[in-house]
């Protein structure tokens, strides 16, 4: 009796094989894209059109539909990156290493979007583009951590070694994640407290909450798509001399 059910174990075992991963992700892509576009359309329509104007912030609050899901993704992707990095570090699974580094650029993008849209929301509402408060500063540090991971990876030629170094950096940076999450509770500044993830009832109306959750779901699918596209490139580059790549190139050029 193993801890993981057999079919699930078999799936992950097969996904760790580069040619299988490459072929499977290609077949998966149209499905992921379809679901992503449906969720995105629903979220945008609900958020920009159906949801009522906020009684205090007017229509400026509509930035929430990309700002908050991006900020959530910036934390979520970091955790995935650190976990994949740890798996790669311990079991030396090549595909875990690839998932880790392919997550970094997507995570950095979401962090960047969260920071810039926050700034564009802060200017009309707080009267300033930026304050050095705990939430904003810790999110900026997150961006530097992502950029550090990408830079370190590119600086080391041997990609197996690079993955080890990157995983360690990512794991050390995990300490920043709870700081970002709790910063608005620990330090009271301009950034508002949580309105959705509060344990009791969310203090946001359902007509505003539903599009927010749709956008969050859409961004999850987006992450998988973007990460897999990057992973397929990374995989080909690493496996350029492998037989399955040579075979595929020969078949395609005929």
């Amino acid at each position, binding site marked *: 009796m193993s801890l993981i059910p057999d079919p699930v174990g078999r799936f992950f075992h097969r996904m760790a094989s580069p040619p299988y991963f490459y072929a499977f992700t290609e077949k998966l892509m149209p499905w992921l894209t379809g679901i992503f576009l449906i969720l995105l359309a629903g979220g945008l329509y609900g958020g*920009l*059109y159906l949801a009522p*104007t906020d009684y205090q912030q*007017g*229509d*400026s609050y*509509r*930035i929430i539909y*990309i*700002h908050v899901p*991006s900020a959530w993704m910036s934390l979520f992707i970091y955790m995935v990156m650190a976990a994949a990095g740890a798996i790669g570090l311990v079991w030396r699974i090549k595909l875990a290493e690839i998932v880790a580094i392919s997550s970094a*650029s*997507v995570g950095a*993008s979401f962090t*960047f*979007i969260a920071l*810039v*849209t926050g700034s*564009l*929301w802060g*200017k*009309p509402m707080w009267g300033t583009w930026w304050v050095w408060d705990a939430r904003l500063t810790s999110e900026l540090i997150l961006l530097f951590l992502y950029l550090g991971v990408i830079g370190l990876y590119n600086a080391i030629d041997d990609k197996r070694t690079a993955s080890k170094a990157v995983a360690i950096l990512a794991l050390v940076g995990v300490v920043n994640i709870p700081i970002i999450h709790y910063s608005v509770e620990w330090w009271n500044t301009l950034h508002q407290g949580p309105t959705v993830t509060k344990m009791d009832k969310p203090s946001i109306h359902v007509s505003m909450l539903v599009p927010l959750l749709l956008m969050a779901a859409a961004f999850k699918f*987006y992450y998988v*798509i*973007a990460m897999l*596209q*990057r992973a*397929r*490139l990374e995989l*080909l*580059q690493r496996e*350029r001399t492998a037989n399955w*790549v*040579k075979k595929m*190139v*020969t078949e*395609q*050029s005929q």
Partner: protein
Amino acid sequence: MSAQEFFAMGGYAFYVWTSYGLCFVVLLANIVLPIIQRRQFLRQLALKQKRQNL
């Protein structure tokens, strides 16, 4: 609500549409760039193979 009202975003058009536009550009680039780079890489590999087979 007219289209004009919709795009005016209650006077916050600049902030709202800049946010959405930037988000769109960054997210699109994250998908398009790796696809282009992968195709280029495959083309390079094909060229190399052809040269070796000559």
